[in-house]
């Protein structure tokens, strides 16, 4: 009878396509929307993710996210270095500057000034050049997305992509010369601004209008010590805020979630999409069973047990759900891959999200199967004689 159940599902090609396409579309909504949201959210703390070496971030108490920064006194760095349990501590400058391109156009960019001695906080993956080249005069490293995107040299012809910035090209920052010595991979920031890496002392030079430059102190706990405890101690002994990297990520995320109206709205849309997607999926399958109710009734009169009918409906639901979800997730991934141009946020359809949305589709087809089955099991077999 299970084979019969499959034939009922696949038998009417029009109806079957309707079910599969319907579930696939719902799956697309269920997968894609949250993945856009999650991708956006993960970019709220991309700086913390990219700088992986330090396990403690020290900052002004008023700083809410890794996207904003408030200057500290340089002396604070020495205080942190002096606290017991701190293995090392280095300065990080993070600021927003205006870059003048070769053709005279201006672009905002984020500048990260790294500790001169260790270059801690630098990009993890270099596409061209090396991190050590930052020690050359006027050296800056540009992130790949920025080099290809906003900092690219415009050809002047509209619609044509610019020529990417390359090693050896020069820029002007606050009327000071900067030479590109490397191109690096970095997770784009939330605002998708280009990122320029340079040394801390040179950043001082570029940002000469700012009085204080120390944005974050990056520290590491001594081996064997709990970074959380060390962070607490730093916070106690200075009047600064200190978080472990994970705490800081969570804080950034929380702040963005609660304070960005755009994110809130988008989150709401995602939720609505999810509910609509699941409801549509359930409805489609429920209707399918209703269409076949008469035949289930006939089977019932002819001696099919409840267990058998339940098995048939479950099989139909699981198969329809699986195929719809498979097609939906495939289409989503293919679409994301085909639209990504390499210079903005990449849509990440991660495994956890796939599992979660797969689970949602599974739950919804099971729920639909439950209601369908209830309808079938409650069916009076005597109804079969009614025409």
């Amino acid at each position, binding site marked *: 009878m299970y084979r019969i159940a499959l*034939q009922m599902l696949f038998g009417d090609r029009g109806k079957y396509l309707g079910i599969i396409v319907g579930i696939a579309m719902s799956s697309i909504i269920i997968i894609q929307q949250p993945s856009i949201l999650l991708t956006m959210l993960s970019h709220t703390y991309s700086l913390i993710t990219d700088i992986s070496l330090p396990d403690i971030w020290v900052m002004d108490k008023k700083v809410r996210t890794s996207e904003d920064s408030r200057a500290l006194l340089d002396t604070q760095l020495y205080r942190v270095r002096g606290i017991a349990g701190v293995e090392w501590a280095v300065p990080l400058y993070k600021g927003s500057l205006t870059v003048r391109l070769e053709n005279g156009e201006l672009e905002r960019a984020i500048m990260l000034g790294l500790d001169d001695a260790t270059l801690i906080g630098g990009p993890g993956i270099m596409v061209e050049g090396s991190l050590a080249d930052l020690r050359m005069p006027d050296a800056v490293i540009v992130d790949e997305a920025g080099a290809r995107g906003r900092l690219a040299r415009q050809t002047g012809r509209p619609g044509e992509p610019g020529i990417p910035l390359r090693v050896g090209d020069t820029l002007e920052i606050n009327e000071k010369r900067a030479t590109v010595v490397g191109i690096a991979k970095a997770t784009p920031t939330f605002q998708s601004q280009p990122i320029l890496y340079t040394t801390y002392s040179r950043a001082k030079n570029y940002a000469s209008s700012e009085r204080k430059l120390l944005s974050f102190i990056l520290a590491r706990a001594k081996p064997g010590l709990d970074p959380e405890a060390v962070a607490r101690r730093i916070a106690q002994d200075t009047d600064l805020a200190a978080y472990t990297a994970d705490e800081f990520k969570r804080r950034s995320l929380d702040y963005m979630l609660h304070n960005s109206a755009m994110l809130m709205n988008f989150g709401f849309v995602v939720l609505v999409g999810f509910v609509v997607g699941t409801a549509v999926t359930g409805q489609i399958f429920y209707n399918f069973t209703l269409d076949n109710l008469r035949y289930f009734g006939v089977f019932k009169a002819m*001696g099919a047990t409840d267990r058998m009918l339940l098995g048939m409906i479950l099989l139909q639901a699981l198969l329809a759900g699986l195929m719809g979800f498979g097609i939906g997730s495939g289409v989503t991934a293919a679409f994301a891959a085909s639209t990504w141009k390499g210079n903005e946020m990449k849509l990440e359809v991660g495994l956890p999200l796939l599992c979660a949305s797969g689970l949602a589709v599974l739950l919804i087809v099971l729920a639909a199967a439950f209601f369908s089955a209830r309808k079938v099991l409650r069916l009076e*077999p*005597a109804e079969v004689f009614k025409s």
Partner: protein
Amino acid sequence: METSATSPVVVCRGLTKTYGVGDTATRALRGVDLDVQPGELLMLVGPSGCGKTTLISVIAGILNQDRGSCTLFGQDLALLSPRERVLFRGRHIGFVFQAFNLVPCLTCLENIAVPLLINGVKRNEALRRAARHLDQVGLGDRLGTTPGQLSGGQQQRVAIARALAHDPGLVVCDEPTSALDHATGARVLDTLKSLAVRDNRAMVIVTHDSRIFPYADRIAHMDDGIILETSLKPETDARSCA
């Protein structure tokens, strides 16, 4: 459950059935006594709403009576658990409906195999036996056809093959010919009767169609929830009506 060839297939005593409660209650059966013998074709006739469908539903074990008893092949249905009753139906009863009720996306062969599959027969064996039954109703060349491609009479013959596929001792039919024209209906009845009688089955056929009365061995006249009288069919030859 052993039944000798002479003991009745169906024994109903004092069956009552009321639908609904209070002002809207309908007394569909008001004390029905009825026996059906093996190899007998009994027709149940009477005006619309007199309780014919209700009665064969109880006889077929798909509806519970309020009072009275209904015994099939010596088994009182009321003594079976719901699950046992379902399995009992599957094994002993064949159904023919007015609207055929063939599953449209299955082939004729697969439709006929359904009662066998329900009874746990393996698919290949079920299809093999279904083919034999399709042949017996004269549609042996339509194995892979779906019901939608057949005429009404052909569909009903497929439905008859399905009702007989698992070799049930009792076949119940509700208005099997009322969706068919007279000549087609007569051919369907021919098929039904020849197959039923041959295997010593009992048949209960509800009908409005007086033109098929001659096929009956016995006719039970119902009105208002009771059986008024049962008459043996006149000895005139059924074939002359066909």
